[in-house]
């Protein structure tokens, strides 16, 4: 069965957001809710939900046009539409009686082969399907999405043994490929996997922080050492809403056996209770453990004092000299300060608890690690973290504290191992099993286990990924670009020429590349070393150009941020296979520059050739000027396509784990009869176009939408995009535009405004509006 039409019942935050994500995948969805009392519009709730989705932050839709795929309706008038649905998702209130009654209706109206699932996060499958016929149970399961569904990659599945195996395959394949989810099969136990462990972690972190008189900043900073997102515990609580916690804890208290460690700590501390009753429910309320207060002309971050229950000015707390290396982490965990002891208590408790839950909550450790990585954005799952710290060391610490040792850890053997380049995981009986990847999944981390790279330096490596395709990986900090990366690109071109068919540019960092390493530029600018600046610009231009005209296909496979030079390299690729979550743009104006590695040249070329643009010499220049001048960054790959950072021939992969395989396939498809592109020529109007762009920029300045230095940068950008001193009757080459890029940069670096922007960004990570 193909899933081509979906219905979501329940247009609350989760139901609506799930519907939006199906729309992101191009699937039409009927979004139904009850008929509101006292409203003439019977679809008011679903319509209101769609309107809210369009304003949601972070954005629920990958493109606003996706909202057109949602059809609002209500469950009184529109149940008949469910006959067209291949999958019906129930996301109504967590009330078993209401859900069961709805299932009775669904059983009556849905086709016999329609998949029905519940998005419940607390109710067991056995309760939901009580008194339902076997025919319903064969097509009913729990599909638990995480909030926000567009961004959280975990999909927990809970199915009874009698669930149709073919349907399970259909849904997991669909969720994996179309929705980009990592599916994890869970046992039918309270909170399934991620929330069971996550709640234990949150609750113990909260209670211990209060008991040990620590600040929220200290606690969150300590957690981030262990690969937990910077939001830590308290930032996460603010995000999900503090008022959820009493419900979650009560549910666990009710459903877990009394001797379960989570059940034992499932109490709402007075502080949390007081905050919720006072309306301090987190970001959606008047603030949470953190809040932003508007001060005189600026915003002040405040934090909750866990003892007094009052807000105080936030503190910038940093833990210095502790890396993510195991030795550093072990030393930190065994330190004697309160924060060291706190972190050990919380993490050891969580890891200990988790180790005791296999096989109760999941068949193996891989499911648990995957759930915590994808559902809570932990860099390491609990068992991966145990391996990172050392199982032996961890058990030693437990023993020293005279704590019990979970059976899974008793042998003290590693939980994962590599055997003959194959990653294996351990079960409770101390047997290792190969970790199977889904068909169509290719990870560079797996490739790396098989042998050394073809080429390597401090910033980049080149890997053989099979079938004649090589993968260029950046691994500098934030994957910034420097002479090492550029040098390796040039070496890679020679390597491919000598024995390979094509090149993929890809890495498994959070971000593809945040652009040029600014620390290289600043000293040269301070010293006004024009030759060095010139050589950096020329090196990037020549390298990217060599990539573009290499005699083999080059496919860019970005995910996350691809900014500045990171965007420019993509613009020089033959094709892009983008992850759906691609945030790309030419943001150089933010640091007082213009794109100098061919970004102006390539984006101008794309807009010049774009068939749907208005005719004449100005519209494509104006559009390019707008995108670069406003440093527009796509909020998704779909939006990147609209900005022409992606062309119509470029593809989007929803599941990040499939990106490399898809990019490799794309490169292979381009190999046969490959011809490098023809160089572009440009017909640009010169000074008159520059005047037009300056008028537009000046109007933005007057309206307060551009700063004085923005105006200066835009003048230089206008000079490049209008073709400098050319005339419309002349044709310019790519080299002409590259020369103009260089000229503009050499002009800008002489000005204090550019240096101020660069230094500010390096210091704060944020742009300066001078």
């Amino acid at each position, binding site marked *: 069965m193909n899933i081509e039409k979906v219905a979501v019942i329940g247009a609350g935050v989760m139901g609506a957001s799930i519907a939006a994500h199906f729309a992101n995948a191009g699937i039409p969805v009927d979004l139904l809710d009850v008929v509101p009392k006292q409203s003439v519009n019977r679809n008011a709730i679903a319509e209101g939900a769609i309107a809210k989705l369009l304003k949601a932050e972070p954005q629920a839709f990958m493109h606003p046009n996706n909202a057109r795929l949602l059809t609002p309706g209500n469950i009184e008038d529109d149940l008949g539409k469910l006959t067209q649905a291949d999958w019906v998702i129930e996301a109504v209130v967590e009330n078993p009686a209401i859900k069961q009654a709805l299932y009775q209706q669904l059983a009556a109206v849905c086709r016999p082969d329609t998949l029905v699932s519940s998005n419940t996060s607390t109710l067991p499958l056995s309760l939901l399907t009580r008194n339902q016929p076997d025919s319903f149970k064969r097509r009913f399961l729990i599909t638990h999405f995480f909030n926000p569904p567009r961004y959280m990659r975990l999909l927990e599945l809970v199915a009874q043994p009698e669930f149709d195996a073919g349907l399970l395959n259909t849904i997991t394949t669909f969720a994996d490929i179309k929705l980009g989810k990592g599916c994890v099969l869970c046992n039918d136990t309270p909170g399934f996997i991620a929330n069971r462990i996550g709640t234990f972690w949150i609750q113990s972190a909260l209670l211990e922080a209060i008991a040990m008189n620590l600040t929220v900043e200290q606690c969150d900073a300590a957690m981030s050492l262990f690969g937990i997102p910077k939001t830590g515990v308290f930032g996460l609580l603010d995000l999900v809403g503090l008022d959820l916690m009493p419900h979650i804890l009560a549910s666990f208290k009710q459903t877990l056996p009394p001797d379960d460690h989570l059940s034992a700590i499932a109490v709402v501390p007075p502080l949390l209770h007081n905050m919720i009753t006072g309306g301090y429910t987190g970001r959606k309320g008047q603030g949470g453990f953190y809040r932003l207060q508007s001060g005189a002309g600026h915003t002040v971050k405040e934090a909750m004092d866990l003892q007094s229950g009052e807000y105080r000015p936030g503190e910038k707390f940093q833990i210095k000299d502790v890396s993510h290396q195991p030795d550093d982490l072990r030393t930190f965990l065994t330190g004697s300060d309160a924060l060291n002891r706190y972190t050990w208590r919380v993490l050891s408790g969580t890891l200990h608890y988790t180790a005791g839950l296999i096989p109760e909550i999941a068949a193996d450790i891989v499911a648990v690690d995957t759930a915590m990585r994808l559902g809570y954005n932990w860099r390491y799952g609990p068992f991966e973290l145990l391996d990172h710290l050392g199982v032996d060391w961890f058990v030693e610490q437990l023993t020293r504290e005279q704590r019990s040792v979970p059976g899974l850890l008793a042998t003290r053997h590693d939980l994962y191992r590599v055997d003959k380049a194959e990653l294996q995981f351990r079960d409770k009986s101390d047997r290792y099993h190969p970790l199977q990847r889904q068909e169509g999944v290719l990870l560079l981390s797996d490739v790396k286990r098989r042998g050394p790279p073809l080429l390597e330096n401090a910033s980049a490596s080149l890997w053989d990924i099979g079938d004649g395709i090589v993968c260029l990986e950046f691994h500098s900090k934030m994957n910034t670009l420097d002479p090492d990366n550029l040098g390796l690109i040039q070496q890679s071109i020679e390597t491919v020429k000598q024995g390979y068919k094509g090149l993929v540019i890809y890495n498994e960092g959070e971000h593809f590349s945040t652009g040029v390493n600014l620390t290289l530029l600043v000293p040269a600018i301070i010293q006004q070393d024009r030759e060095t600046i010139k050589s950096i610009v020329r090196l990037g231009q020549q390298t990217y150009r060599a990539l573009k005209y290499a005699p083999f296909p080059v496919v860019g496979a970005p995910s996350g941020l691809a900014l500045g030079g990171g965007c420019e390299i993509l613009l020089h690729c033959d094709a892009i296979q983008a992850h759906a979550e691609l945030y790309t743009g030419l943001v150089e104006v933010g640091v007082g520059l213009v794109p100098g590695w061919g970004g102006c040249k390539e984006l101008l070329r794309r807009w010049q050739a774009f068939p749907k643009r208005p005719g004449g010499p*100005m519209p494509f220049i104006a559009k390019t000027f707008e995108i670069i001048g406003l440093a527009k960054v796509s909020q998704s790959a779909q939006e990147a396509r609209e900005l022409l950072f992606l062309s119509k021939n470029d593809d989007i992969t929803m599941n990040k784990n499939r990106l490399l395989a898809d990019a490799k396939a794309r490169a292979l498809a381009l190999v046969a009869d490959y011809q490098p592109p023809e160089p572009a020529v440009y017909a640009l109007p010169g000074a008159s176009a520059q005047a037009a762009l300056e008028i537009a920029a000046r109007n933005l300045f007057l309206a307060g939408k551009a700063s004085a230095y923005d105006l200066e940068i835009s003048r230089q950008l206008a000079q490049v995009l209008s073709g400098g001193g050319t005339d419309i009757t002349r044709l310019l080459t790519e080299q002409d535009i590259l020369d103009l890029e260089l000229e503009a940069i050499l002009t800008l670096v002489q000005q204090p405004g550019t240096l101020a922007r660069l230094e500010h960004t390096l210091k704060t990570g944020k742009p300066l509006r001078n």
Partner: protein
Amino acid sequence: MKNVVIAGYARSPFTPVHKGALAGVRPDDLAAQVVKALVHKSGINPDDIEDLILGCAFPEGEQGLNLARLVVHLAQLPVSIAGATVNRFCGSSMQAIHMAAGAIQMNAGDAFICAGVESMSRVPMGGFNMLPHPELYRNYPQAYIGMGETAENLALKYHISRTEQESFSLDSQRKAYTAQQRGLLSDEIIPIATPSGERIDRDGCLRPESTAEAMAELKPAFLANGSVTAATSSPLTDGAAAVLVCSEAYADAHGLAKLARIKSIAVSACLPEIMGIGPVAATQKALRRAGLSLTDIDIVELNEAFAAQSLAVLKELPIAPEKLNLDGGAIALGHPLGATGARITGKAASLLKRENKQFALATQCIGGGQGIATILEAVS
């Protein structure tokens, strides 16, 4: 000399850009539907029409080529009718009327369709391909000044507060809404068929829900610390308008309904940076040519490009509120650049008849620093 009369007036609904009901209608189609309806409504024999003179401020793209001649065909008028597209920015279709009046007095024809159109949704203000003269821009940048900035200049020069502008704009909204509710706009509006099969017969720019409090909340639209906001500016609009201009003798001979006689016309120029004051000199010229004084005028259609601009004009031309823009102005109704001149001239002529008055003035400012004015008198 021959007398020249306005013998018919019609317009499309005026709707806001992009989200408005006419955004999907090509400007040539829009103009053609209005012209065709005007010909039908006026009862003129189409074979007698000498020329279709069509105003358009940004005649490119779908408004390009010789739009007027193309509209002749689209409106299924006789192929014998000539067509000329004219551009005096916002004064384009009033200029069309002036050209027809001149031609009639030169005995160069008896009947003219004088129309105007602008789809600001489909052809942006400034056009797709603005390519200013670089040296002129360097040496005399105000030649290319933005319209909002000129309104701010007038607000400063004439000490017009933001509150005064908002009060003027509220008044425009109130008058237009009242007129709409009373059906006073219905006669002049030609329902427009859209490509999606809809029939649009109602103005879409009006904001009857406007309040002084809500207006006060808006950020300045053009200058960071300025006083002109979206609420005190005419909205970007799609629309078309047309009037039938003919010799009085022709109208009488063929039994056409005469709305008003053209008494005098004028154009003037001023500094581009205060273009909004243009109506003052143009009106004074036209009054002189008509042998009238401002107090003789009973009905005034002053185009409301901006409230600040209109208020500045009113400081120089003291016009009693009860004579001014009786059914609301462009701040409420919208300002499709090329169409506005025909609308306010046709409207002034209609009002003379409806209100049974003697003299009317239609005047407007023009980007680049110009004014245009037409004085009409009642026909018995």
